[in-house]
């Protein structure tokens, strides 16, 4: 069964540094998302991406964040200048997005644990 993969599994960075989190979505899926989960808290939506542009973003997704699909397959989340409070598990998710019953299921990757020191 196809899976969403994410790299790296764990990233440690110093405050103020840039990080890029990578996701390889399930092929032929049309919608892409980033979520994050701060330790012990619930999963929070960051941004959705469809047809090569952002379709929705949350208040968390400020100017320090950006997303892109540089080569039509990988889906990346960049944090330009990390803060301590960016420490969290970051999840990529995909959705098939066709007009069929099962196509609204969002499939999540295993996550990248980001630690900002």
């Amino acid at each position, binding site marked *: 069964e196809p899976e969403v993969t994410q790299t790296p599994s764990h990233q440690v960075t110093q405050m103020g540094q840039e990080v890029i989190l990578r996701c390889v979505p399930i092929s032929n899926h049309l919608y892409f998302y980033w979520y994050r989960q701060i330790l012990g808290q*619930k*999963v929070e939506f960051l941004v959705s991406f469809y047809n090569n542009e952002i379709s929705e973003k949350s208040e968390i997704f400020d100017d320090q964040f950006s997303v892109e699909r540089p080569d039509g397959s990988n889906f990346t989340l960049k944090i330009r200048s990390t803060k301590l409070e960016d420490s969290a598990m970051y999840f990529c998710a995909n959705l098939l997005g066709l007009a069929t*019953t099962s196509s609204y299921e*969002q499939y*999540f990757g295993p*996550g990248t644990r980001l630690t900002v020191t």
Partner: protein
Amino acid sequence: SQQGEEDPQALSIQEGENATMNCSYKTSINNLQWYRQNSGRGLVHLILIRSNEREKHSGRLRVTLDTSKKSSSLLITASRAADTASYFCATASEGAQKLVFGQGTRLTINP
């Protein structure tokens, strides 16, 4: 904004018993999805139920949806130690829109 909230926050039962978790939300939805998360790991999709459905089954899982009460339940029958995990409900107001997650129920199955 819509929000899924689960109860109980924690549930501990004996292996073989049934586990029921509930989820409530605030606004109209297109679908509701349940996920499992083992400690520190990713989210595993369990089941999706659409707003025009009342009940769905998948193996030992049974999900119900009551849109008049804005609530859903997840029943795991004949629980196993491997079912120990956190379970989250998440709602989408439109089919392909963001999911809004609840705080989750931490389920512990005692052998």
